């Protein structure tokens, strides 16, 4: 399960969407698994059910989950289309940030090693 950060710039709704996606990516939710009901999810996260409802709708429209009426929401089979549009937007933000680091006099290799360390800590990959 995941936590919500109330202070984050990201809206809660987006956090729920991303949180669910993370769970699927990390394998906590496998294809065919049933997602928590809106009721349980909103209670667990202490968030308005509408928010969960909207998140689930978004996930469904992106193909991450599918709903069976009367039975709930389930993780879809197969690979998921990465959200390239979002990815591009984040890359663009990264570029802006890197510009600022260059401006501050940080060297490219320092940035690289720093990035590696982050990835290692967060994902355990290299």
């Amino acid at each position, binding site marked *: 399960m995941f936590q*919500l950060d*109330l*202070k984050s*710039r*990201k*809206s*809660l709704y987006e956090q729920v969407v991303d949180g669910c996606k993370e769970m699927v990516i990390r394998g906590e939710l496998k294809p065919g698994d049933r997602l928590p*009901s*809106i*009721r*349980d999810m*909103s*209670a*667990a*996260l*202490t*968030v*308005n*059910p*509408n*928010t*969960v409802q909207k998140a689930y709708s978004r996930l469904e429209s992106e193909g991450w989950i599918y709903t069976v009426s009367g039975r709930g929401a389930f993780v879809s089979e197969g690979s998921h289309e990465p959200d390239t549009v979002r990815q591009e937007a984040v890359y663009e933000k990264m570029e802006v940030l890197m510009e600022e680091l260059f401006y501050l006099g940080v060297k490219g290799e320092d940035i690289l090693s720093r990035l590696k360390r982050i990835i290692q800590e967060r994902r355990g990959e290299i």
Partner: protein
Amino acid sequence: MIQVSSLVKKFGSFTALNGLDLCVETGSIYGLVGVNGSGKTTLIKQLTGVLRPDSGEIKFDGEEVYDNISVKKRTAYIPDELYFLGNYNLKSMGEFYRGLYENWNAERFNTMAADFGLSKTDRICRFSKGMQKQAAFILAMSTMPDYLILDEPIDGLDPIMRKKLWGYILGDVAEKQLTVLVSSHNLRELEGICDSIGILSNGRIRFQGKLDELRQDLQDMSLEELFIHAMEGKEDA
């Protein structure tokens, strides 16, 4: 749906509420927000039939609230200052409520008491303030209300209890379309829970609407930022 129109309430020469309009959609969680002394409790006491409005209307699903027993049977209220009859314990309060509320759910009552770890035989007046809040909450939720009115609900509760409490409420909102109005000046607590807010100032609701819509216009502000923005805006205007 809760519909308040042109509500006026005066205390002697002081006008607390001055033609107030408010609307809470069914199944939504409405945050009533305002500075201390803005009249939140006065408004809430009229929503629950304790005080009588000088003029204006308060309707739950089209029915006036005041002296209306059938509406009150579907409404649960947790006030800021709690009161329990005499030396009663949870069990006897439960029996009292059972005689009053048609939809009383004894199973839920027992389950919740156990869940919160409250003794049903100790006198409630001996409970700590937080436990008393929990007791009031259990009694309220066991009446299976259609409307829940909360005045400063989180005073005195630790985060675990708070999460439990909201868990139950959110569950009913999700499953039964429970309509909730919660007043607090602790906006962080309401963050994420409310889907609409109303800002009470100078005897009226100055600002009311769905949070999603408000946020779109105002770049994902937090509730606190939104409140300050709204109040400042009013002072400028």
